[in-house]
């Protein structure tokens, strides 16, 4: 079992006009390659802040985040962009698709900096859209797709660069229960079949059940780190 992500005492303080807010307070844990981690907690508990920090979208105020021996908290903006481009896929609650691009064009976006030719990009994107069952919708714009289909396009985009990690922020937040199950099953499938580590923020206890590891946050502090295999690992 390889540790892919190590988090040591990360703290994130947001400084605002009204004062400072401790969004994260000395959170520590380690994630193994192939884990499906559910991050739960009430609103304002710091779930998304944790996801942002782990994915290199923000830097922690203190502490360290180590991804494959690289300290993300010390990385430059350019290095973090590189880290996200090469290792990370994102699946967001609002799908984060660009409205004037077709499904296949949205999936091709991460390949824009890969140096691959347009033909190569198109072939790869068609294959990944096939994987999520949307090859016949590749030329449809997001507005022409259902919510579930849009989220599958987002998943295809997250997969296109063969990421090590997928960060999902409330991926089923905008979906009905049936579609939620479909998406969660799909995430579980790629987690198992491709050994991609998934870190998913969710409010839903049912969605959280898909994770083999659960991190529960409360007021920016880690409440529990629970693994189905090992039960409570740390507190």
């Amino acid at each position: 079992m390889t540790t892919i992500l190590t988090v040591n005492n990360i703290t994130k303080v947001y400084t605002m006009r009204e004062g400072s807010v401790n969004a994260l307070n000395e959170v520590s844990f380690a994630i193994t390659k192939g884990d499906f981690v559910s991050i739960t907690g009430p609103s304002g508990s710091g779930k998304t802040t944790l996801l942002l920090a782990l994915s290199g979208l923000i830097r922690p105020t203190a502490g360290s985040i180590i991804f494959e021996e690289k300290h993300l908290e010390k990385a430059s903006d350019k290095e973090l962009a590189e880290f996200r481009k090469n290792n990370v896929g994102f699946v967001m609650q609002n799908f984060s698709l660009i409205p004037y691009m077709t499904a296949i064009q949205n999936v091709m976006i991460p390949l824009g900096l890969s140096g691959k030719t347009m033909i190569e990009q198109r072939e790869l994107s068609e294959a990944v859209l096939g994987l999520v069952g949307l090859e016949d919708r590749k030329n449809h714009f997001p507005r022409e797709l259902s919510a579930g289909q849009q989220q599958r396009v987002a998943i295809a985009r997250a997969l296109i660069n063969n990421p090590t990690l997928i960060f999902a922020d409330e991926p089923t937040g905008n979906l009905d229960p049936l579609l939620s199950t479909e998406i969660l099953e799909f995430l579980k499938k790629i987690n198992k079949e491709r050994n991609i580590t998934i870190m998913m923020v969710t409010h839903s206890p049912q969605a959280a059940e898909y994770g083999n590891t659960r991190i529960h946050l409360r007021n920016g502090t880690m409440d529990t780190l629970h693994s189905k295999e090992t039960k409570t690992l740390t507190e």
Partner: protein
Amino acid sequence: MNLFTIVWLELGQRKTQLVSGILAITLGIGVIVAIRSISVVSEKAVAVNLDNLGANILVLPQGANVDNYYAADIDAPTLPEEYVERIVTSDLTGVDNLSPKLTRRININGQKLVLTGILPKNELASKPIWQNSGLFGGDLKVACGPNPSNETLGYKDEKLQRKSIDSLGISDCLIGSNAAIRLKVKEGDKIIVEGTELKIGKVLGETGTIDDDRVFAHLHTVQNILGIQGQVSAIEIMGCCNAISDGLLSKLRNILPDTKITTIGQIVSTQIKTNKLMNQISLIILIIIVFVGGISIGNYMWANVNERKREIGILRMIGYPKSSIYFVLMLKAAIMGLAGGIIGYLAGVVIAWFLGPYIAGVNIPPIPGLLIWSIVISVFISLVGSVLPAWFAARFEPFTNMQEV
């Protein structure tokens, strides 16, 4: 997918905004192209018209003045004809034409007239030593404007007081209308001037000037008649007004230090003022366009960047570095500038074509060189106006997509 595709796809969106953004710069460029086209063409027209008026620089002997010259004083000082050669063989630019003249009052058959010796243009151009000089070497065209063509411009003016003559035989003369009446002669007749017989090649039309009482003959003939070989009263020069502004007079003074060089003020100042006015109008409009166009494009880019915060956030989240975001926005600005420049140029050509005859009284043909100029200005304005919005956009945090922080 690449950065160009992203820009291209985005350009297809928000078409109304895009059109209004380009329109501002298009109108600006259109107006300036129109004004510039009209000013350039009318400047040339003015230059041709002024050329028809004659020389604008006089080289006089030291101690002489313009009054001596026009009065054709008997004792007026002279300068060596060799000075013509000095000018012609120098590397001066901006000298379109020059005409050495020797003028004296004479008495022919009891009539007091003015005898003017002129060196015809064809003789100047035919001197071997001058063949390869800057003035006559291969190109006799005007240095600062079009070659005035009498035919195309309908030039019928026969005033010769400050003009050169194309050809004149050694025993020929031209005679002013009043002189012809007073001497009772006509074309083809012969007159005796101080013992020398001259055949009247042409009786000039009435001009209302001293030319009406003048007899024009070949310079060397007049020098022989008057017994002042190798001397001239003055050298008249048609100088390009821009060259005069750029110091043509002082350059001439360096070549001919012991002469008095003067401009025919009214003509030169009219030329210079006309050109300056046109250039100033163009410059003022250019400055306005730079400000208005830059602000307009900048305003559009601000709005665009704010509307696209989410898209920019997506690109940043996926791994596009700040430099790529900056590049995407600046590329878009450049494309808008390019489009604005080309459409603006075409609009300007059409405006000039329609308004030219009314404003300047001349037809305004397209000036292809202005297309490059339009594109450069337009792209420059567009890029400058977009620098700040693009810089701020590149600094957008990539987590603008996240629902909760």
